[in-house]
């Protein structure tokens, strides 16, 4: 199984480490031809404006949309923004997931935080997933075909931080910055399905 990681900018190497640990082969994608032969794709954290602009310049927008129509794709933070149909800003997006994003929803870097989440779809669902939110977005609203996978609890009650639509997965936080590989295993289970 070969999982590509969009490597235009961001923490793609961190994703590759966890993907290899859970048994996938990985490769970096910077140009459209590098999507050939992949079974799935991860769009990493980074700056969503930077990733979007580079994707436009190097002709990746349409190839990525076609890829997402037939393969599992997972976006973390900036990657989730890039997958969304609306970020409430003027920036290039793939628009393949029926979610609306609020960028920097919690404020600036001094407001970044770590918190435990309950994510029932993961293995060992009783064990909280320790999530890292860095200048993080929120999923402000999700369309009918979107399954909410995790929400924040008190203080931000009900706010969506992870969602799935068919073979597409979006997380507002960074599983790749932790040692907990359950989200990467969950993504691989979508690829295998």
């Amino acid at each position, binding site marked *: 199984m070969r999982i590509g990681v969009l490597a235009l900018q961001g*923490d793609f190497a961190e994703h590759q480490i966890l993907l290899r640990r859970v048994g996938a082969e990985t490769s970096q994608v910077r140009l459209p031809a590098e999507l050939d032969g992949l079974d799935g794709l991860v769009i990493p954290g*980074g700056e969503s404006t930077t990733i979007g602009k580079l994707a436009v310049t190097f002709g990746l927008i349409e190839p990525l949309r076609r890829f997402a129509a037939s393969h599992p794709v997972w976006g973390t933070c900036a990657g989730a923004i890039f997958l969304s149909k609306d970020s409430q800003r003027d920036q290039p997006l793939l628009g393949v997931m029926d979610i609306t994003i609020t960028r920097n929803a919690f404020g600036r870097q001094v407001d970044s935080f770590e918190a435990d989440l309950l994510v029932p779809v993961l293995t060992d669902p009783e064990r909280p997933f320790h999530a890292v939110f860095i200048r993080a977005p929120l999923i402000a609203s999700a369309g009918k075909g979107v399954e909410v996978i995790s929400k924040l609890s008190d203080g931000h009650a009900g706010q969506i931080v992870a969602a799935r639509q068919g073979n597409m997965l979006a997380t507002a936080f960074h599983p790749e910055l932790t040692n907990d590989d359950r989200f990467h295993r969950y993504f691989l289970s979508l690829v295998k399905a």
Partner: protein
Amino acid sequence: MEKEVGTFALKKGLAQMFKGGVIMDVVTSEHARIAEQAGAVAVMALERVPADIRVAGGVARMSDPALILEIMDTVTIPVMAKCRIGHFVEAQVLEALGVDYIDESEVLTPADEAHHIDKHLFKVPFVCGCRNLGEALRRIGEGAAMMRTKGEAGTGDVVEAVRHARSVLGDIRRLQTMAQEELMAFAKEIGAPYELVCETRELGRLPVVNFAAGGIATPADAALMMQLGVDGVFVGSGIFKSGDPARRAKAIVEATTHYKEPKIIAEVSRGLGEAMVGIGVTQLAEGERLAVRGW
């Protein structure tokens, strides 16, 4: 839900989001907009780019908070700002303003000739400059969550950036060939905390993200630093002291992403107009060198 803020993982994590990207010096909100449009991952808000700090002489200090706030209001990407080495009150002020990263920078006039800021005390993360592995690990020991090799700011001459990157990365390679019992003597020799020497050896890289800075002026300069093994680049005077800042900024971003593709670097380097004029580092008097500041 228990929320933890200001942890080292969060500080270091934001720098991980910058990887493979370009951080640009900007002195106005208009510059900041151009940088964001070009694809910068963050901007460094300051009153004068290093080349102009050299010309102006005198004491270089933290920028006017009004300018920093205006730039923070203009762009959605993270905003960094510089404080003087050891000037922890300038750092407190920058934290109070809500900047996303503080650069404790040798480009400004040092406020303390022996001590750097105790960066562990802050919620906001810090980036610091280094010329070699010992200096990098001392700064990380003090709490820096990101490093940048110093180069020689405001010159447009990449030679010092190369020297410092080669020194840091070469020492890490050397470290990996050492026997365990040699590490304490090596830590002593380079003046670095022993635990961080051990950690660096185990990781085969610095424990935090490491960008290159100081003298990068062209797309090829940026790709050179990336091929040498840094995680991304800072471009200071190189963009807004050039003939066509918007095009050059975009080209440097593209060359940083495609640093292993000479054909793409060639393509993006076409017709960029005048690069910054620059000063050869060998023409600088010892007292004009900024990189030697830092202890």
